[in-house]
């Protein structure tokens, strides 16, 4: 038994750091929690994993029916215009809602076992990536069907945008999951936030008047949706104007979320 394995347990004071090393040691648990989230998500449903694709597809149908004119103005068929935006949006919405419930939903785990608490929201966000992959595959099929080729830049832009959506979802998820432990009000706020976010992200490109357009850039998902459409289906004029603000907002959200999470983490087991 080496000295280095001695764990000192004392009341923590002030800032305790992110403990990335520990998070890394628990990577297998992170994987198992994400895997469990994926496994149980569609258990005992008739359509099972198909729901991962059906959710954005059904929204696509509704939007094409009611707001088809926006797509026509962008010069892209309605279904693909909306679906290309809904794929990252659905990922984001699922990731946030699952992450915000990740601590309360695992209350039993929190009060019975030690593990780095950050694992729970991260696993929730990672699990949502699996749904994203399925929905994205359908997007590729649709692009082939419509004969739409992505821009060459998509190879770099799409992963970058996905990372941006992921960081934003995690940042928001950290805030909401930690707040949810003490304040269950969060459970009522999240669905509402997601409904508003849906419109603020998918229809942001239709707003051209300043300062609203820059303001909408504060919503990183507006940039992500816009970027997906630009790179994959060739609508719009890029996202460069909003990109800077989006990245900054996302980074701020992630950092502040992680700091807040780590600060209140010590009382989770007592409060949850």
């Amino acid at each position: 038994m080496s000295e280095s394995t001695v764990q000192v347990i004392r009341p923590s004071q002030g800032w305790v750091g992110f403990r990335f090393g520990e998070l890394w040691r628990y990577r297998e648990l992170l994987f198992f929690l994400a895997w469990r989230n994926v496994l149980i998500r569609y258990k005992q449903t008739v359509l099972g994993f198909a729901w991962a694709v059906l959710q954005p597809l059904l929204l696509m149908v509704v939007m094409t029916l009611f707001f088809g004119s926006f797509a026509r103005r962008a010069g892209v068929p309605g279904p693909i215009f909306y679906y290309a935006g809904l794929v990252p949006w659905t990922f984001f919405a699922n990731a946030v809602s699952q992450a915000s419930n990740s601590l309360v939903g695992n209350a039993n785990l929190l009060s019975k076992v030690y593990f780095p608490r950050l694992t729970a929201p991260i696993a929730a966000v990672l699990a949502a990536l699996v749904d994203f992959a399925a929905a994205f595959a359908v997007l590729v099929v649709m692009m082939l069907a419509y004969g739409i080729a992505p821009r060459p830049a998509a190879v770099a832009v799409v992963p970058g945008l996905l990372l941006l959506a992921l960081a934003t979802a995690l940042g928001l998820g950290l805030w909401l999951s930690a707040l949810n432990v003490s304040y269950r009000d969060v459970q009522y706020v999240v669905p509402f936030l997601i409904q508003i976010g849906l419109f603020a992200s998918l229809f942001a490109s239709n707003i051209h008047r300043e300062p609203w357009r820059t303001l909408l850039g504060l919503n990183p998902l507006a940039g992500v949706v816009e970027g997906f459409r630009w790179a994959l289906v060739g609508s719009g004029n890029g996202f460069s104007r909003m990109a800077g603000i989006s990245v900054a907002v996302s980074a701020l959200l992630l950092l502040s979320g992680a700091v807040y999470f780590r600060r209140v983490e010590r009382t989770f087991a007592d409060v949850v």
Partner: protein
Amino acid sequence: MSSEPAIATEGLGKRYRLGIRPTAYRTLRDTLAERLRRVGHGVPAETVWALRDVSLEVRPGEAIGVIGPNGAGKTTLLKILSRITEPTEGVARVAGRVGSLLEVGTGFHPELTGRENVFLNGAILGMRRAEIAHKFDAIVEFAGVEQFVDTPVKRYSSGMYVRLAFAVAAHLDTEILLVDEVLSVGDFAFQRRSLGKMQEQTAAEGRTVLFVSHNLGSVKVLTERCIWLERGRVREIGPTEEVFRNYVASYGGESGSGFVDLSDLTRGRASTPLAQEVSFETLELLDPTGTATGAHLEGEPITVRLRVRAHTGIRRTRLQLVCRLATADGAVLFSAASGPRLVDLEPGLYETAFTIDPNPLSAGGYVVWLYAVTMSDVAADRGQDLLRSAARLTVEDNRSAAGDDDGYTWKEKGLIRVDYPWNPLRAASERVDTPLTTLG
């Protein structure tokens, strides 16, 4: 291995704010309202120390028990050492990989299969994937659920579910293991096996175990040293046997000290003039160490010692002493009778005793009745001294130590425990051999 303690704590304490624990959650409005109230009246939130000033050292390879009544801080201590919750003050040093079992089957999901749950639960308990894969067959075999590994655990019987959960826990082999009450649920025979497995590893691999339990029996089987917590503080640390005796004696207060003064002849007894000649003086209930106590352990002998005073000289008289043991609601379990003995007694104090051994009493509360009758060798009954409820005693759960291994508690079997061996099953003919009785 160094001589450094595996676990050392100094002045460890944990304070809870009252109200945090009991209510499930708070809303923002509650917090705001409370803040405002406190600002208004300057009233600090009420707090309670669940644990205070706990300093202890556990050597590597040692198995140590933690006992105490509900709310003594046992689980809080375990939660701090396993880092589930932070201490409010003090420091603890833990050397080595820690596995904590605050319950079995933490993280089990009903929709997942046995196999999936083993991996998930193993990972939650801190096992590596390779380690779980390596032990998987052993775990499943130990639980006896081989045919059902790919069935969702919600379809398991509750027994299978608990066995599988236990099996994973029993295969956890960290250097330090913190165990809380997990042995108090489910199939008892299986718990014994798991306990055995843990013990095996403790002995063979020098693993340090901190074991919290209400079941004094299993604490005794597993540990040499014991910590007695009371109201968050350490009341006693020492050899298990010793701490145990004091603990049982302390909580036996309710059941009496095991020493009863019976010399007051006016005290509720149904006595005839005999009492003027011979009467009970004292009654003592002794544990195997010879200590008088009202609280005894299941399966351990109880010695009943009686002192009798002869007030006058007694000549050629048959004296019979009877000690009856009854349940708290008055059902007589047995009478230990001395048998009528011809005695010649000078005035003075006399002493006798018998031992309830083997002790067949299951855990519970009992009442001792005393009864003395005399018969002259020529005439009939000359009188009696009868005391109903002369003393009370309790028997504490001690089932693991008693080696009772068939999955029932004694309570379920009845008030007393018997051990009648059955013949092994053997093949029998289909034909009924009993000759038919011809009627009429």
